[in-house]
């Protein structure tokens, strides 16, 4: 639903903004690393984490300096992988044909489709993705022929995520409790909310 809305809005934007000789479609694909700090749940010590991240942004130029579109990525955190899907904007500051500054903003959600929950006779566990927001700044170095450019980006990425571990009722069939904050059939539920905050350094190309 969300994705189809994204495509539709891009399509509309593409149609309404196809002006002049300026190329409408803009793609920026980058790979890099996320740097963050995580507090160990056992010792309380803060540990550094470095994770792989990639992002591909597809957009339509709506004016000389602005591109809107959507981004799709792959972020690998310590034990899990997330596919962030977001609406995005890229703004360019500088003269054509020269290195430019790129400002960017992506907002959307992280999908945990790659993470399989577990289900057994005793209970069930699963992940639910959450909001992702990522402002970024970067540099745009156009290539010799002016088609492909090299990009370098620094971003802050905020990814929310929840992990649920539920255990089923002890007695085979039991009544749901009316005031329940628990889904029917569960005896307990552990919800772990994660907020990953990372500094992302990425490098790639755009055309």
């Amino acid at each position: 639903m969300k994705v189809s809305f994204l495509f539709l809005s891009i399509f509309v934007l593409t149609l309404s903004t196809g002006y002049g000789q300026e190329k409408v479609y803009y793609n920026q694909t980058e790979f890099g690393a996320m740097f963050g700090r995580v507090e160990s749940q056992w010792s309380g010590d803060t540990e550094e984490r470095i994770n792989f991240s990639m992002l591909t942004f597809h957009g339509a130029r709506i004016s000389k300096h602005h591109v809107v579109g959507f981004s799709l990525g792959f972020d690998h955190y310590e034990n899990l992988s997330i596919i962030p899907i977001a609406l995005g904007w890229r703004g360019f500051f500088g003269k054509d044909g020269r290195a430019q500054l790129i400002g960017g903003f992506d907002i959307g959600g992280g999908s945990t489709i790659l993470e399989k929950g577990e289900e057994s006779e005793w209970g069930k566990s699963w992940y639910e993705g959450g909001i992702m927001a990522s402002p970024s700044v970067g540099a745009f170095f156009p290539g010799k022929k002016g088609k492909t450019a090299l990009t370098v980006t620094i971003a802050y990425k905020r990814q929310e995520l929840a992990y649920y571990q539920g255990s089923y009722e002890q007695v085979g069939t039991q009544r749901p409790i009316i005031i329940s904050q628990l889904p029917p059939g569960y005896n307990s539920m552990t919800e772990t909310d994660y907020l990953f905050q990372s500094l992302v350094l990425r490098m790639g190309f755009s055309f």
Partner: protein
Amino acid sequence: MTTSRLYPLLWILMISVLTLSCQDEITTTYTHRTMMPVYLEMSDIRARTITVEPPQELDSPGKIYIYGNYLLINEPTKGIHILDNSNPSNPVNKNFIPIEGNVDLAVNSNILYADNYVDLLAFDISNLNNIKLVKRVEDVFTHMYRHDTGQIITFKDTVITSENAYWGCANCEFFTMDASRSFAANYSAAAQSYGTGGSMARFTLANEHLYAVDESTMRVFDVKNAAEPKFVKPIDLGWGIETIFPFQNKLFIGSNRGMHIYDASTPSSPTRMAVYEHIVACDPVVVNEDFAFVTLRSGNFCVNNINQLQVINIEDPYKPYMMKSYPMLNPHGLGLAGDNLFVAEGKHGLKSFKVTDVLKIDQNQMEFLESMKAVDLIPGPKSLIVIGPDGVCQFDYSTPSKLIRLSCIDVKNPVVIK
């Protein structure tokens, strides 16, 4: 802007971002169901007058008992609904008797027996418009007492949410562990097992005696004079008692380790004839002259991963032996009407078999209604009553091979089966 001016700007940005804290935040909330202890003075409970109330919607029904044209449906720990079932296609909710701590019931000559925490109550229900409490037998279900001061402990089903991994409230934990013997266990067992009329009964009437089983004890009441139940004695059964089924001067008691057969020809003092033991499983029992039908199912307490219907030969009740077992999907309650056996297969549905030849039950399946999820059933004189997530449903089973749905009573909190 030139490239040379751009670099310093980038570096400034980079350094400023790097100095920002990018620490992950992880918060965990634990939500769990527990039994909160509630202390009650029996003197207070006895002092309260029980007044019959207008009909109430069925919330989470427990036992169902058929008496004449009436269906009596227990709402565990709350009371008893009375429904007029003269027309099984349209049962009419008549009234509600609020009885605290009630989990079971039985009716004998217009006298309704119901437990009220540690007491047994007898109501005269000959006139539904004028239900009267006629007798209270005090202090019979004494396993609920924690000490002999007249104070009892019960447990309230509660959901607790906390940010600490500490599983329980300050008082709860100890009691939660201890709860297996208490009312809570009785309650949850009652809540799961339904139907005094069904195969998962815990109160049963036979030969002018009322037998009440809890986790480990059978209590015998003399009800020769229906309105004057007299407590006779407790009989120790051992652990894990679940159901009781009377048949021809015998009591068949299903436990999670096997089936006990008691000789009740001296009704006031049943004696053990045999114990047919099997591996731990949850098992209701139904019986005819020669055979007992037992279902074993894998549930959470009944750890063994076994789903079976067993046929046990009881021609010699001192030497029961298994004749044959049939694989099942997840059998819960079962009911026997003549040669027709109905098995509630949990979420898988409802099965019916001809059991004329007990060695060929699997070849004589009559129907398998996969849409009728069921946990227990009672073959009544007018209809087959089936309890499941859809509520309390009734079927016409005059043609046993072709069940016809008559009605379903809506239930606010139907049973959950996985």
